[in-house]
């Protein structure tokens, strides 16, 4: 059976499973559509949150970014997990006690202002749409590979599948489907990692293997990796090279953004009790940590495997021959990935070999001149292909490769579905029912929810064709936007009675606009290529890259809100009472209708 057929079988079987569950648990009323009737156990909820949360960025993209940069990209690991501490301590229990369905409802009620609710909805839509662009990038890579078509064709097919999938059910369908997706994606991520860790270090646990000794040479794996990459002129893997200030800000942005993303926060509305909301955040992180503790091992081990693959005789010996790549089954993955347009090589000096090295390094330029090399001949290695190509690179059995294809799609689909749900509920529930037409029928509300989904996915697909970065980088921008707009409003709403309606609105707008403008200045206006005035290599403000600005945006939000609130009327007593009741678990009802 060819690999193509195996991939199709795995992907097809996993899809049949999710759709089967979605039909079985189809949403009936609107309240079920949004919050699953509040009957979800914390462990189940944690698992579904993990699937919702771990997207194409975590599954497909992150390990690749770590692999090619090393220590400096640990920011993704710390940032995307540290946010759960903020969620658990600062938001989840209180929002559950408040007991409504959406984030913007809380903001609208707490700041006693339809304007605040409207601004929150806009913030949610901007952040979620950016997030979906990142997902579509990942969907394009995954579909391109498993259907063996170009990246663009993969993206278009993927968009249709995501849409059909998201329209199927509401949260309830999605909750149980996402449990299934979690199982598929975590198996798909860890099984190849275990195989590879055993091959390289003899340790079945990748997180321990990463700090273990290499089976072939007996020296520590990371020391070996450091040595081999520096011999090719690349940065030492375990060392710090980038800007420290930017690294801190970036990590902080990801953390705050995690606690400000609507599709994750919405999850905590669906647990039965306030105490369960606290446990839920912990369980979510347990399931997330299984992948996040494995990811750095996947990255380092893949980097080692890839480098050795191009230098089978060591960095002093001959590089891999073009003929070997074209004929040796071990190199077959390169031919399949070449079809997607995301991997490319070129024998520039015509010596029949592919030299992979850092041609920007002065030492390597000297060595290249000596050996007659005329530049790095691995001309394109898209970071987003690393995880999906990893089992093929390590020569693992066909079923593992099929499983990884299914897992990558599960990750991208589950998050895209969760985000589309957040966008559609923001538009239909908050925007149309909450502001434009309060008398809309349930049917009309569901219909407008689906139209909003279709529009969001069309925009994301269009921008996904020319994404502002690799999947995880685009997603990081979405986190920056959420960090600058939503999180501060929620936190101040719970922890300060002083912040009033005007303060909150001014804060959210200031945070959102400064961050959005900063991002557009560096990534192009509305992410249209070549409309940027600055680059992340040479940013506008100090060393702060566009992906790191969210933390500054959040600080602006807090400062403006406090400043404006100090100059305007105090919060009315009934709102102070509301805040005080939110702080105490007792009296949290079950689902509250409107």
């Amino acid at each position: 059976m060819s690999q193509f057929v195996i991939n199709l079988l795995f992907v097809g079987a996993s899809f049949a499973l999710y759709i089967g569950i979605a039909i079985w648990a189809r949403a009936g009323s609107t309240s079920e559509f949004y919050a699953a009737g509040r009957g979800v156990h914390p462990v189940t909820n944690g698992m579904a949150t993990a699937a919702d949360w771990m997207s194409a960025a975590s599954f497909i993209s992150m390990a690749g970014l770590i692999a090619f940069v090393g220590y400096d990209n640990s920011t993704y690991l710390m940032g995307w997990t540290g946010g759960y501490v903020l969620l658990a301590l600062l938001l989840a229990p209180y929002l559950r006690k408040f007991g409504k369905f959406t984030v913007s409802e809380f903001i609208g009620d707490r700041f006693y202002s339809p304007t605040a609710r409207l601004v929150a909805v806009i913030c949610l839509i901007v952040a979620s749409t950016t997030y979906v662009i990142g997902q579509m990038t990942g969907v394009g890579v995954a579909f391109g590979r498993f259907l063996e078509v170009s990246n663009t064709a993969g993206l278009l097919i993927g968009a249709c599948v995501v849409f059909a999938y998201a329209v199927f059910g509401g949260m309830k369908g999605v909750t149980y489907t996402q449990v299934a997706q979690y199982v598929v994606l975590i198996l798909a991520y860890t099984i190849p990692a275990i195989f590879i860790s055993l091959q390289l270090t003899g340790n079945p646990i990748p997180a321990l293997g990463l700090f273990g000794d290499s089976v072939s040479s007996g020296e520590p794996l990371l020391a070996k990796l450091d040595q081999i990459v520096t011999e090719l002129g690349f940065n030492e893997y375990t060392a710090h090279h980038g800007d420290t200030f930017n690294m801190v800000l970036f990590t902080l942005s990801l953390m705050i953004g995690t606690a400000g993303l609507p599709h994750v926060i919405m999850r905590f509305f669906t647990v039965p009790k306030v105490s369960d909301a606290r446990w839920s955040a912990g369980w979510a992180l347990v399931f997330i940590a299984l992948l996040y503790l494995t990811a750095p091992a996947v990255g380092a081990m893949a980097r080692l495997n890839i480098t050795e693959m191009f230098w089978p005789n060591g960095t002093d010996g001959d590089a891999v021959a073009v003929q070997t790549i074209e004929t040796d089954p071990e190199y077959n993955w390169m031919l399949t990935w070449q079809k997607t347009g995301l991997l490319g090589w070129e024998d520039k000096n015509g010596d029949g070999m592919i030299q992979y090295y850092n041609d920007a390094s002065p030492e390597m330029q000297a060595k290249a001149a000596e050996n007659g090399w005329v530049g790095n001949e691995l001309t394109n290695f898209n970071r987003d292909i690393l995880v999906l190509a990893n089992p093929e690179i390590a020569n693992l059995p066909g079923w593992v490769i099929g499983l990884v294809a299914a897992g990558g799609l599960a990750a991208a689909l589950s998050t895209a579905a969760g985000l589309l749900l957040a966008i559609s509920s923001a538009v239909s529930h908050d925007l149309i029912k909450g502001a434009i037409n309060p008398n809309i029928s349930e049917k009309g509300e569901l219909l407008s929810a689906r139209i909003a989904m279709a529009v969001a996915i069309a925009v994301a697909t269009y921008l996904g064709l020319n994404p502002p970065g690799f999947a995880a980088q685009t997603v990081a921008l979405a986190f920056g936007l959420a960090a600058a707009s939503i999180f501060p409003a929620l936190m101040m709403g719970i922890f300060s009675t002083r912040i009033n309606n005007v303060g909150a609105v001014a804060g959210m707008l200031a945070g959102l606009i400064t961050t959005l403008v900063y991002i557009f200045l560096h990534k192009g206006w509305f992410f249209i290529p070549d409309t940027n005035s600055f680059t992340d290599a040479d940013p506008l403000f100090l060393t702060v890259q566009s992906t790191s600005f969210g933390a500054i945006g959040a600080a602006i939000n807090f400062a403006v809100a406090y400043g404006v609130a100090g100059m305007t009327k105090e919060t009315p007593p009934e709102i102070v009472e509301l805040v005080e009741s939110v702080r105490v678990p007792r009296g949290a009802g079950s689902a509250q209708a409107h």
Partner: protein
Amino acid sequence: MSDESNAYWQANIRLIKWSLVIWAVVPFGFGILLRPFLKGISVGGADLGFWVAQQGAILVFLALIFFYAFRMNKLDRDFGVDEQ
């Protein structure tokens, strides 16, 4: 706000403050800023800071959340504000 519920909230804020100190010191301190000073402590081919940045911080976050949930649920009962 009654004294009772005020005391409950103050206890909660204290717990949150100390938890957030650990939340900040481990990744930003040990994982990034203090890493050069901890270079001497080696962990399997790298150093402590590298391990914290790629593994340790995540484990600490997990411990923090479960610790907080456990303490808060107990605090709820002590102050009689838990859900019945």
